[in-house]
């Protein structure tokens, strides 16, 4: 449940000048694994996530989710967008139950779950608020809640905390650690923040640009459960030094 598999996947954007966003990428995420894609902007990490989400089609290769080819987006892969991308005319509650509602699930089935998830992300007092009345961090909490309420087999997160200030980002990372450590769902997490990748992931795949490739995979063996206190541990810094050396090397 929740396994992602890419075999020699390429993505080429046509046009006046062809851009090879992904070049022959082999990549796997196991059930319940938290994998971070780390790399500079333009390295194709978001493209890879969009392919898994079914937002874009691949040029070459095979891409499967739980052994079935990915053809379109669906509630089995919950996506959390960089800017939350909530529907601004719907309240927090309506945004969170949008998925179950269009899937025509029974109210009695999803309403208690939606209430519980909004409580977990700390928004129980904001059911009726419109997205525009919330801070960036609160908006992203709604973005996570609306993905979780569908009970997806995988969570695909595209730089979800990239637009937040440092303090809010820390509290969101802590929230995600808490939630993931109870749910244990598969997570594919795109980021350019080394600290974030080490703190959250079981495994970091470092990507380079032009053409987009995964150059190295680094298992993060920090003990679970983790918390934001790990950010200052000696072991954390050992990983950080290693990845920084790796990324510097990648540029030459």
């Amino acid at each position, binding site marked *: 449940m929740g396994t992602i598999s890419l075999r020699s996947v390429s993505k080429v954007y046509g046009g006046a000048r062809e851009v090879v966003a992904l070049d022959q990428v082999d990549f796997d995420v196991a059930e319940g694994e938290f994998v971070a894609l780390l790399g500079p902007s333009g390295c194709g990490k978001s493209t890879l996530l969009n392919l898994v*989400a*079914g*937002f874009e089609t691949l040029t070459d290769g095979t891409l499967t989710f739980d052994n079935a080819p990915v053809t*379109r*987006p*669906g*509630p089995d*892969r*919950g*996506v959390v*967008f960089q*800017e939350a*991308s*909530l*529907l*601004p*005319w719907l309240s927090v509650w309506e945004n969170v139950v*949008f*998925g179950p509602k*269009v*899937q025509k699930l029974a109210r009695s089935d999803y309403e208690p779950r939606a209430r519980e998830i909004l409580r977990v992300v700390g928004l129980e007092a904001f059911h009726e608020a*419109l997205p*525009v*009345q919330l801070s960036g961090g609160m908006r992203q909490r709604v973005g996570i809640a*609306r*993905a979780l309420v*569908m009970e997806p087999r995988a969570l695909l997160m595209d730089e979800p905390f990239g637009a937040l200030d440092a303090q809010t980002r820390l509290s969101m990372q802590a929230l995600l650690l808490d939630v993931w450590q109870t749910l244990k769902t598969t997570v594919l997490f795109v980021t350019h923040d080394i600290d974030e990748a080490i703190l959250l992931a079981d495994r970091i795949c470092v990507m380079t640009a032009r053409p987009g490739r995964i150059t190295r995979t680094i298992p993060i063996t920090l003990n679970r459960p983790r918390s934001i206190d790990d950010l200052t541990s000696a072991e954390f810094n050992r990983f950080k030094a290693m990845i920084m050396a790796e990324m510097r090397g990648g540029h030459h």
Partner: protein
Amino acid sequence: MTDATIGSRTRRPEVSILGQIVRSRLGKAILALLLPLGVLVLWQASGTNGAVAGGALPTPDRVWKAWLVWAFGKPGPMTLSPYVGSWADAIYFSAGRVAKGFGLAVLVGVPLGIMIGWSRLAASVVDPTIQWLRPVPITAWLPISIAIFGISDFGAVFLITIGAFYPIVINTTQGARDVDKNWIRAALMMGASQWDVLRRVVLPAALPSIFTGLRIGLGIGWTAVIVSEMVAVKSGLGYVLWDAYYVGRMDIVIADMVSIGLFGFLSDWAIVRLEHWVLKWRRLQNFNQ
């Protein structure tokens, strides 16, 4: 020394009296009335014996009296003038035609605009034709309208629909095209069908543009009703306007013009109120940015 201290204490910058008037609601209403009242006074003063410019135009008091008779007069068995107690009928016919024609334009224009904005196929098939037909003014449609529908109510409704249709369909198309790509992706990710996306994402996202189209369309609808009633129907404010001119009743002509302006303004106000209510999220957004 105490006096000096008090005097030198920094005060909040005071808003001038004029500034306060401009800000208050009552002050705004008074300022808005200054210009029309000034014109009325000048108009009244420049006339003698109830006429301006050697009898070509009546003065405001005569227009007012003519309107009172037109609106509230009781026609007796010997009354020959059609301008006794028939104002409400004229309003009823014209406003009714605008409502029908505008309603039809909304029913066709909004779904079509959403389709053109959403589907590249629909855009390629329908959009060029709309762009070619759009430069034909509604007045040019008059002969065809009369040829097809004769001197009938539906001829007027048809012209209003044509006139209101273009701004509605074009603004809706624009709104449907500019929908944030990630809103659509988010909806698809949550299991929405194409129909769900159109109804629950594209339509609400396009509403601000749609309302712009509705306001412009309604304005054109009022132009179209007057034009068509002058030529193609025998009732309503447009018919009265032309008929009164023929029999030299310029007081009725002016009362008629004021009535058109008033009802055009009221119907626009109704749409703005509706927009205000429907687009609450949008208002908050603009306020917070």
